[in-house]
């Protein structure tokens, strides 16, 4: 999966979108970083929900946040709630191995726009990116 037709434009019409990978697993952070990079998406990685919140507190904006659920310090549910409470309107996609409906429901209700089960694949990422394009014309 290499760039081209799968690259998205962000809400401001920029050709590169920016993403934030939030995952406590270094293996997953590295894979997700490379998946995004290969799709032409600039991205940063952080290791827990608090770092994700702090990344926004310093004024950064991301079109897409890939949020793991189970993390130390601050988990993905709490981080998603905090980011929404801060007014962050980025597309937040939960990425987790949790498969129980109740767990997915709680994560979605925290403010997710999408939910994907791990392991994340290029195809799943593309489906998330398409939502960025769709949401760019839909007010939140």
């Amino acid at each position, binding site marked *: *999966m290499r760039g081209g037709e799968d690259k998205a434009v962000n809400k401001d019409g920029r050709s590169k979108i920016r993403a934030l990978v939030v995952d*406590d*697993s*270094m*293996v*997953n952070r*590295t*894979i997700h970083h*490379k*998946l995004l990079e*290969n799709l032409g998406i600039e991205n940063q990685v952080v290791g827990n929900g608090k770092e994700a919140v702090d990344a926004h507190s310093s004024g950064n904006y991301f079109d897409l946040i890939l949020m793991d659920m*189970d993390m130390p310090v601050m988990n993905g549910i709490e981080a998603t709630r905090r980011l929404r409470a801060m007014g962050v309107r980025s597309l937040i996609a939960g990425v987790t*191995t949790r498969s129980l409906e109740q767990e997915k429901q709680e994560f979605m209700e925290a403010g997710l726009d999408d939910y994907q089960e*791990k*392991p994340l*694949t*290029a195809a799943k990422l593309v489906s998330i990116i398409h939502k960025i394009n769709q949401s760019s014309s839909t007010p939140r």
Partner: protein
Amino acid sequence: MDRNHLLRQVAYMKNSLFDQGYLDREQFTQLEELQDDANPNFVEEIVTLYYNDSARLIQNMEQTLVNRPIDFVRLEEILHQFKGSSSSIGAKKVNDACTQLREYCSAENTEGCSRTLQLVKQEHAVLRTRLETYFQMVREAG
């Protein structure tokens, strides 16, 4: 040994890993597709990262089973993280063993947890050996 022969051996070894259930074909293939000129050894690097990280997690799981009382919640948390990384590299048999361990953990079955943790360690070690041999062959094939 000529390069074509080595490449055939590499392909044979990889297919064996898939056919014998050690690796998930789709997931491992996706990792390979992430390799490019800038990161020609990406898969080997990820696997190395996985083994460095997972060794620590196994040690932590073993420690939870030594402590009294056993903290099954903590064990499940560590196992969840370990399983997540294992599935990301397509470690199929390791993952299957983790699923068994998770069931014993949920049931708070100490003996079952100890036994299946040993199975997890075994599958983890076998895969490591197979992958080390595979990557050595990949390097030789250039």
